[in-house]
């Protein structure tokens, strides 16, 4: 059934005013990392369930918007202020008029969200752990518990996180972690954006608790560490309209492939193709999904030569001794 569950604690209601002065066009959309991932996963043909908290009026609207897109919504519904923003684009530029991060979850709401996600996760093939809209909405430790409990039941867990939430998820151990080079810098896992430092950080992430590590690097080839092999992933260059959603497309493509039993290489190829076309934010026809699959076949994954550790140093005499000792 290729079912994917996305833990998206706080989706965002986006209200955008377009058009002209006097002839305004008001758009309501569901947004946030988990929602963008869910759309892409769905476009790639997997069934997707989003586990979230829907808060107050904005939450009510969000529930309808997401549900109408054909995404199953399992939600904890509560009163209060939900995550939302209001943008005015009538002048051509995007002007932020208001933004609400949403109220933090109470202990009770959090327990309910946790139970609901765990229950949904148990009948899923893959679970994506995505971040909340605001930093203070959910405590980081929930990511450790979810990762640990879902993995204990044999589920594939993909973490698309950074900062403290990433650290927490790794403590619980995950199957795949996807991080961008910018996030590595922000988390002080690297001090300069060089391949050498990134590779070093990738091994550290693996050590901390990820079986496969994927690093996205904007328009540069992604790096992957999986099954002891370090690879670079090359995608034909596309004219990127909006690079921001590329990482979410990548995660969705990886999840969709793993859910249908594909290998990690196939998963990364599809994810890279989805990321390059970056179709998450601008609506998806089935035609785009077809384009993603076509582009996937052009993705090249090359093994990288490992950074050498001199394993042994011998004199010619010692080398000769290796025959004599037999």
């Amino acid at each position, binding site marked *: 059934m290729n079912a994917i569950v996305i833990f998206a604690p706080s989706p965002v209601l986006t209200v955008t005013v377009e058009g002209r002065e006097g002839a305004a066009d008001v758009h309501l959309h569901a947004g946030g990392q988990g929602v963008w991932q869910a759309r892409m996963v769905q476009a790639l043909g997997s069934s997707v369930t989003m586990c979230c908290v829907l808060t107050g009026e904005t939450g009510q609207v969000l529930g309808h918007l997401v549900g109408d897109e054909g995404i199953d919504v399992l939600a904890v519904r509560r009163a209060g202020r939900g995550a939302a923003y209001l943008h005015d684009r009538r002048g051509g530029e995007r002007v932020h008029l208001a933004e609400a991060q949403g109220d933090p979850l109470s202990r009770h709401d959090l327990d309910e969200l946790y139970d609901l996600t765990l229950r949904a996760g148990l009948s899923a093939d893959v679970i994506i752990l995505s971040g909340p809209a605001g930093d203070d909405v959910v405590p980081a430790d929930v990511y450790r518990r979810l990762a640990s409990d879902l993995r204990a039941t044999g589920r594939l867990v993909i973490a698309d996180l950074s900062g403290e939430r990433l650290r927490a998820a790794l403590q619980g151990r995950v199957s795949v972690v996807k991080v961008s080079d910018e996030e590595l810098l922000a988390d002080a896992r690297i001090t300069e954006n060089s391949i*050498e430092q990134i590779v070093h950080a990738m091994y550290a992430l693996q050590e901390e608790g990820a079986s496969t590590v994927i690093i996205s690097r904007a328009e540069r080839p992604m790096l992957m560490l999986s099954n002891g092999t370090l690879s670079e992933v090359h995608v034909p260059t596309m004219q990127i309209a909006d690079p921001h959603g590329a990482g979410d497309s990548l995660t969705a493509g990886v999840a969709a492939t793993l859910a249908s039993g594909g290998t990690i290489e196939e998963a990364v190829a599809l994810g890279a193709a989805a990321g390059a076309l970056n179709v998450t934010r601008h609506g998806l026809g089935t035609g785009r999904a077809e384009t993603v699959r076509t582009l996937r076949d052009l993705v090249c994954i090359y093994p990288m*030569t490992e950074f*050498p550790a*001199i394993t*042994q140093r*011998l004199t010619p005499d010692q080398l000769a001794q290796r025959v004599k000792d037999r």
Partner: protein
Amino acid sequence: MRQSFTTLITNDDGIGSPGLLRLALAAHDAGLDVIVAAPAAESSGSGAAITATESDGRILVEKRRLEGLDGVPCYAVHAAPALITLIASHGAFGRAPELVLSGVNPGANLGRAILHSGTVGAALTMGVNGGRGLAVSLDVTTNPTILRWGVAARLAAQLIPFLLDQPAGTVLNLNVPNVTGDQMPEFRPAILARFGIVQTTMTQQDQHQIRLAVADTAAESEPGSDADLLGRGFATVTSIRSVDERPLADLVL
């Protein structure tokens, strides 16, 4: 300035090596007309061997893309670096190169033991085929956690104008210390240590490969040698020659 010089970038530890990429980028930035053709697999210690894998009478070659080298032809060749250089100088990858830059090798190639080095083998092969060669190696025994490929590549690029002024057949062997911080090592001309050090790989029976440095540890005590000067933090430059005849009259009869 030297736009027209076609330059082959190769190495002995394979097309995926970070050292190769840095060297190719440095050559490209220096305005050279770059072709990358490097072994598909680890070929350390191959010297000037001309081994290759064939299929239906063709040497196996795959086109590759290397980061930052859009538009530069890049090939993974199932062959030893000296063979790649030999066929390149006969037009296998387009215009025959005037220059080969080989490296940046992880691990120093010092002293007369460089006879066995695939990195040096490629440079010498270009030398006997009417071109010029530069072998570049980074000493990875010091500060091995961060390898300064970029420093080695930059020093190599600095030597290129000098090398292009020399007669055809000139081959240089450059060894660069793995410095910390921002300091750039100083160049020093050096003679070859009696044995020195060469990098190779050994294949275990389970096909697992281990890297091996074959070194005569007494080498450091030869003052003025490449091993001695590299150990003291200099970037050593040695002008080297491959096979050459010697008059029989010089021998004791």
